[in-house]
């Protein structure tokens, strides 16, 4: 059984869907950030696969940059969380709705 590009794409989108579920489900911000990592990672698989099947390096480069971006996001995200936690003692996003309407 030959593993084709479509296999990878389906896998990637499934993982993406899992990420989406996490994004929608998680109320703890830290765990929500996990879910966003999953989103980026799932796409990375697809990029690598396409790159492989097309014999083109661009996809891998995209993955490279996505990883960099993900890392930066973690830094900023955690920074924000730390400040929030210092002030409020929790990172539950249900407590985060002073602005509405």
């Amino acid at each position: 059984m030959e593993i084709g590009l479509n296999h990878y794409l389906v896998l990637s989108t499934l993982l993406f869907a899992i990420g989406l579920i996490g994004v929608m489900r998680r109320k703890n911000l830290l765990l929500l950030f996990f879910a966003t990592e999953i989103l980026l990672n799932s796409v990375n698989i697809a990029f690598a696969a396409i790159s492989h099947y097309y014999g083109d390096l661009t996809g891998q480069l995209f993955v490279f940059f996505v990883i960099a971006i993900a890392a930066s996001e973690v830094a900023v995200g955690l920074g924000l969380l730390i400040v929030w936690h210092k002030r409020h003692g929790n990172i539950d996003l249900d407590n985060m709705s002073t602005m509405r309407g």
Partner: protein
Amino acid sequence: MFEAIAFYLFAFLTTVMFFIAVMTTQALHALTALAAGMIFISAFFFILGADFLGAIQIVVYSGAVMALYAFGMMFFDTTRDVKEKNGNKYIVFGLSILSAVLVVVIFSAPMVTDNISALYPMVEGAGNTQELGMVLFTKYLVPFEVAAVMLLVAMIAGIVLAGKKMDLSLTLMNDAEIIEAKIEKNKKVLS
């Protein structure tokens, strides 16, 4: 055949790991599962011949990112059970199922891949790292540099947000308090 087995194995593993990561109520489990999933993903990279990416994946994600998260978890004290109220589960599940169905519908159809010419084809005989480096430092030099800037931004942002005294409000303090705060800071440095 080996490829197929490896694919399915790792596909299964990553899916399960990520699933656990998003579904578990144990923060520690989630973290662990996520780290595992990341490592399994690097396996795909190796399978697909992107060795460099695989390495980076392990180093950056499992090394740096996960370490950061672990640090964060300790800081936030989320090792206990995470209590999450989920108001309307139907929306979440409805949307998830819908997305899954859509995905399958979409990608079960074959993709037409005519008229595609590899811009940066893989070169025979060169290592993946070497190829990548070649492209990275020619074509993608600019994005690479911008990414450096981005990392710098992220660093500064992290320092500003977490390191500097964001818990004090310079907006609301009066001048005397600010001077006092500065003196205190100097004391700490001296001691």
